[in-house]
């Protein structure tokens, strides 16, 4: 079913139209990719869905509920999570603390800290277990108490993924998840994405690496200058001469 729908969404920044008349449906249980040259508006769409910027025109629906212009935390609580192009881990916090923050808990309200301290303590214990599981899952085991700023770029990226997974979101928006990551880990990452989707979740991702795109995407939207230029199965899109011309560097991709 269509889990996220964008209807006639438009956004301008200081007179320049970043995205225009966007109509998109994202199906649940699928991996959908947004591809296109830089500046095409892909990250802007993520920001609009996520509530980080407000739409100028149009609406966004999540499971038939209108979520246009809600605040980022409201949208997150509804079940849409994201990672950022520039990672954004909490540098001075440890790996464990970063992942623990991925999930809401009662202890985040000060009155609960004091009035319901037993419950908060119990929940914290459970969350630490869960967090350790995800830390191990992405391969950062043993680094729980390392401050995030001491991690390498690739490790920080894995951390942000672990933090996202902790949130058990229904929809995951991944902004260039494999950029700067070692090919070995990329493989593991692709497996991970498949597994997540097998459990009924939805992934929407932005990617520039066409090999990865062709390997895992079920559907693609090709954006150019803020508009949807084309959409379809990876085979069709990536095989299209016109698109390959627009999007340089496609000529060496096997489809």
């Amino acid at each position, binding site marked *: 079913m269509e889990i996220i729908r964008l209807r006639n969404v438009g956004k301008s*920044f*200081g007179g320049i139209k970043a995205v225009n008349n966007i109509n998109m449906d994202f199906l649940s249980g699928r991996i959908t990719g947004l591809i296109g040259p830089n500046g095409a508006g892909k990250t802007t769409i993520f*920001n609009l869905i996520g509530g*980080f*910027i*407000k739409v100028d025109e149009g609406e966004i629906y999540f499971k038939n509920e209108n979520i246009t212009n809600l605040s980022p935390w409201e949208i997150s609580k509804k079940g849409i999570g994201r990672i950022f192009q520039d990672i954004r881990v909490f540098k001075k916090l440890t790996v464990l603390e970063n992942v623990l923050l991925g999930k809401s808990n009662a202890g985040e309200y000060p009155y609960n800290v004091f009035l319901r301290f037993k419950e908060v303590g119990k929940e914290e214990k459970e969350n630490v277990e869960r967090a350790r599981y995800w830390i191990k899952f992405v391969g950062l085991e043993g680094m729980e108490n390392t401050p995030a700023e001491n991690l390498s770029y690739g490790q920080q990226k894995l951390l942000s993924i672990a933090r996202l997974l902790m949130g058990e979101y229904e929809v995951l928006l991944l902004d260039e998840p494999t950029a700067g990551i070692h090919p070995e880990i990329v493989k593991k990452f692709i497996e991970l994405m498949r597994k997540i989707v097998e459990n009924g979740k939805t992934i929407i991702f932005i990617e520039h690496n066409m090999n990865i795109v062709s390997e895992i995407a079920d559907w693609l939207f090709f954006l150019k200058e803020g508009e949807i230029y084309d959409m379809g199965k990876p085979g069709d899109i990536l095989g299209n001469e016109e698109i390959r011309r627009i999007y340089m560097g496609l000529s060496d991709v096997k489809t």
Partner: protein
Amino acid sequence: MISQFLVNGIITGSIYALIGLGFALIYNTTHIFHIAYAGVYVAGSYAYYFFYRVIHLPLFFSFLAGIIVSVVLNLIIEFLIYRPAYKRKSSPMISLISSIGCYICIVNLIALLFGNEVKIIYQGVQPSYNFGNIIVTQIQIIQIVSFVFIFILYLLFMKKTNFGKFIIAFLNNPELLSSIGINIFNLRVIIFIVSGVLAGIASCLVATDIGMDPWSGMSILLVGIVSLIVGGVGKFNTAVLGGFLIGIIQSLVVWKTSAKWQDCITFLILIIFLLFKPEGILGTKRRFEEI
């Protein structure tokens, strides 16, 4: 009767306008919250006092000396504090706190050297003139005339000279400026000089009228900042509108209730503007879109 208060309001407003302009010049371009400007203000008037009462320089030259000291001090702060902070890419909050530290040092040094009590320049009664039922003292007339004169010079400087045009461009796009070969640092020097002049003139005028003390700089600066917020952020002359508005409102408060509520009302206006119209009456709306 109200006309007397209106006139008084305009006269005090002219001082707020000057300080607001000087503060706006720095804030609009460099985004530095120059709290130490209050210290620069006070230093100007005390230098004026020193040269006039201690060294016995003629009034006019003492006044000039006061302005020069303000300018020099403003530049010292820029070179010692703000420029290194800019080079280190420190956050604005850190500059703010350094600025507060600077203010504390300057004002307490002055208090140490000259004492905490109010000092006056002019002894004796001021000659005054009647315009209908409005009474204005000589120094008040000088104040408003000076303001008009200075403001015209300021506008000419900003609109006609190259420096002025670059400063306005600085507001919109500092990176572009450096890419066309303009030295930002030299421009900052000009900005701090002009703003120092404005503070010096304002403080010496006030000192001649009602005297000075080490602590009045902060209250004047704060009202100057309110003038900027009310008049409009992001432009270089809107603080004038704010200054006169606040001056008149303060006067009306004195007329209707009493002088003691001036501060309260002034800052209530600040809060209302910050919450409901932060760009001010004539300012440009800031876009807060993150990411």
